[in-house]
């Protein structure tokens, strides 16, 4: 399944890219969170699919646009 990923803030920095397409064998958002927790260690983030915030049970579909959103603290 192809996922169009978008990264923000410290996630884009940690992965050294702001966007990419991944061909990945993943069914739902929980699995995607696992996949990224391995790469992102302790960076906290929420997932939006096609511009909607989703929870971990959300079933991903081919060509979904998936954004990884970290919280920002600064002011």
């Amino acid at each position: 399944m192809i996922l169009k990923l978008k990264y923000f803030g410290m996630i884009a920095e940690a992965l050294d890219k702001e966007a990419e397409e991944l061909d990945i064998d993943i069914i739902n958002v929980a699995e995607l969170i696992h996949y990224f927790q391995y790469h992102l260690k302790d960076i906290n983030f929420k997932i939006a699919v096609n511009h909607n915030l989703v929870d971990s049970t959300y079933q991903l579909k081919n060509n979904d646009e998936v954004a990884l959103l970290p919280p920002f603290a600064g002011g």
Partner: protein
Amino acid sequence: MSLSEKEKHRYSRHLLLDKVGESGQEKLKAAKVLIIGAGGLGCPVLQYLTAAGVGTIGIIDFDTVDESNLQRQVLFSISDVGTNKALAAKNRLEQLNQFIKFNIYQEKLTNTNSLQLVNQYDIIVDGTDNFSSRYLINDACVKANKPLVYGAIYKFEGQVSVFNYKNGPSYRCLFPEAPEVGSVPSCSEIGVIGVLPGLIGTQQANEVIKIILEIGEVLSGKLVIYDALKASQFTVAIKRNEEQLNIAKQIDFDSYDYDYYCGIKKEQNMNEISAQELKELIQKEEIQVIDVREPYETPKVEALNAINIPLQTIPQNMDKIAKDKKVVIHCQHGVRSMHAIDFLEQNGFDNLINLTGGIVMW
């Protein structure tokens, strides 16, 4: 609240607008807005709300102006260095508009003062720079049912939203969990481009004005992420989450420690165990292990035979936790388990041990 002739002249460009007019300007004059934090975000918010004629403006900040603030905190001058920010902001803003009433609070926002403060205003603006304050402000606004205009920045990117507006979602509906210790640095640690808080703060000021005037579409149920390097923005829809709103409503300000929740402060007397010690302990005696992560989180360690009780559900599941033997609580990195132990110890448990560094140390 009618306008004097001087005020009509001052606000004449607003009065010319169909969507503002005299009645809109009177609404601005009657409005009371509290700005929490007079820093990078707070300065542009304060400047535009003062210029626009918001009648009563509260400013709370415990900090003093430092020379390194002047790169982005545009209300302050060299002569303000060392002065409290709320006071310096008021002194500057009084030069800008004599028709505004300023209430300043040269103190930290705390569990004790937050509700009483928030209750005195119609709209709250978050211009703080740390998660403890952001969760505290959110929870106080949920409890007091006040709209919260949120802004936050990171290097070249900023987030804006309006929470708790007409039954819309709250900050916890977007980010239910505080980040782990040290995972999100502040501007003072990592830097920020000076114009960014200006861009985000003026968007916050714009949302405040729309709420007061009841015009346009308020940015409720949506998070905008602005990228200053690309001049582009990305919008995400957020839904109201009743469970998270109930957490905010039920938090007891008399006992809840936001610094602790956000991992800034560690429990002094908590019993800790390393992964290696735990491996030895399970060989020696029968213990109970509780995993407070969400069910989908891995790795799972079969040897521990852990009972899964996600952190948020602990209050309803305390009867599942043993009192007659040692209980080791773990999560991924050892922070959520600390919160769990803290909560349980307040509820009479004295047999709990935290797995230092979490299950990733196994």
